[in-house]
């Protein structure tokens, strides 16, 4: 008999729900994005985000069940994000998930949001562990060794700003609307990538960690030095995006080659960036392969949560009442 998983994602801006059959067939995948609300306020508003999640969970569940042609009795497993993220939205989603599991007397599996991103490129058997995973978004920049049996090891992360955060902040300073990081990409299409040369942050201790705060400051300095004409604005967007991508690609490939890993996976919102995808493809050596999730699965979504939860369930994980949300949940 088929195993139907209901995935629930509420770690930050998006309320997501997905229905997944046997870990491979998507019966429904829906997202209620708060981007428009946040645009009005110029950023994320946690209090409003929590309340929106609360308001949207039930209607969203009804709509994914209808889309999947099921009623609640057809759900066999609940998978819900338990961290990392904003604590308010996490609590709202996880409590809802626990109540649902309890009421229906079905198993629940808590999912690490980062694991969702890591495994979203694996969906439908495109790639399997072991691989080297890079997660890069507005809140994360992490390089993780992913082994079989959920053996994860954090190899490097950012020392200051996340990659997507640097893109967002520089974009906002340039006057781009929320989410400014994504807007940089379209502006960059009209700019010269070589117009401004940003340094590649080198760690003095030779570590593989990332750092984006220095180039963020350098980009802001550029804006102070000269007036931003439309031409210079596009050039700066292209050059800054180039610098962020260059650092991500260089570090990731260096670590992969040192460890002799041939398969790479990139997830998170910045994985949707076309320039990052192209640069990785350009720099790959023979025998190396890179996998990106479908563009719609890069940013936060519930399908990745359903899928990671399904994999964990198949591996024997069962969570109970003790399942708790954790804002700074680590990957293990």
């Amino acid at each position: 008999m088929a195993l139907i998983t209901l995935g629930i994602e509420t770690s930050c801006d998006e309320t997501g729900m997905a229905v997944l059959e046997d870990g491979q067939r998507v019966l429904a995948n829906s997202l209620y994005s708060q981007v428009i609300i946040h645009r009005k306020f110029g950023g994320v508003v946690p209090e409003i985000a929590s309340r929106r999640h609360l308001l949207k969970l039930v209607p969203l569940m009804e709509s994914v069940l209808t889309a999947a042609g099921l009623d609640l009795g057809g759900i066999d497993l609940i998978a819900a994000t338990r961290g990392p993220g904003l604590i308010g939205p996490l609590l709202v989603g996880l409590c809802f998930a626990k109540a649902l599991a309890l009421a229906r007397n079905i198993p629940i599996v808590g999912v690490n949001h980062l694991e969702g991103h890591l495994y979203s490129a694996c969906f439908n058997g495109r790639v399997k562990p072991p691989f080297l995973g890079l997660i890069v978004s507005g809140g994360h920049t992490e390089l993780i060794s992913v082994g079989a049996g959920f053996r994860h090891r954090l190899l490097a992360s950012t020392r200051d700003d996340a990659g997507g955060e640097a893109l967002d902040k520089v974009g906002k300073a340039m006057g781009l609307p929320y989410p400014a990081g994504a807007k940089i990409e379209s502006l960059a299409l009209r700019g010269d990538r070589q117009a401004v040369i940003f340094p590649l942050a080198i760690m003095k201790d030779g570590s593989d960690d990332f750092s984006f705060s220095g180039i963020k400051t350098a980009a802001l300095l550029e804006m102070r030095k000269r007036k931003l004409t439309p031409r210079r604005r596009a050039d700066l967007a292209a050059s800054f995006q180039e610098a962020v991508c260059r650092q991500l690609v260089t570090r990731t490939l260096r670590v992969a080659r040192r460890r002799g890993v041939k398969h790479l996976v990139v997830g998170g919102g910045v994985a949707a960036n076309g320039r990052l995808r192209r640069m990785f493809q350009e720099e790959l050596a023979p025998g190396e392969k890179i996998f990106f999730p479908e563009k719609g699965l890069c940013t936060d979504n519930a399908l990745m949560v359903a899928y990671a939860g399904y994999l964990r369930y198949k591996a024997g994980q069962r969570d109970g009442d003790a399942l708790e949300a954790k804002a700074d949940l680590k990957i293990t």
Partner: protein
Amino acid sequence: MRRTITSHSPQETKELAARLAGQLSGGEVIVLSGDLGSGKTCFVQGLAAGLGVRGRVRSPSFIIMASYHGRLHLHHFDFYRLTAAVELTELGLEECYTAGAVAVIEWGEKFRSCLPRQTMWLKMEWRDENKRTLKFGRGFTADHFAGMLNA
């Protein structure tokens, strides 16, 4: 007591903050204001090091608040993405103003009315690529400066 100190590098900013940490005894609330890239997170990294926090202090813009444990607890807030004071209640901000803890708030000036009277105000200004002016305002004492300037 007010005073201006110039830092010539991120390292110098961190060392200054680490020496300030030595003068803190818990219960302090420090607001860091200044543009993007003026070194606020860098200052907090120094403060954390001075409090004996192990592990990495990153920009909390995305998660809005992060807590660390050292000689004292350190609660690191970032109001960059916040737009309304009502949210501060939800964040449990007031619960963080306790003895045994230091609360440091980037972009705290956005919600002046929510901050306690004893708040210490530090404004960071950008001079050039490496140089920053640190303007210590209300809340800082002679002891704080003595600690910071005794290299």
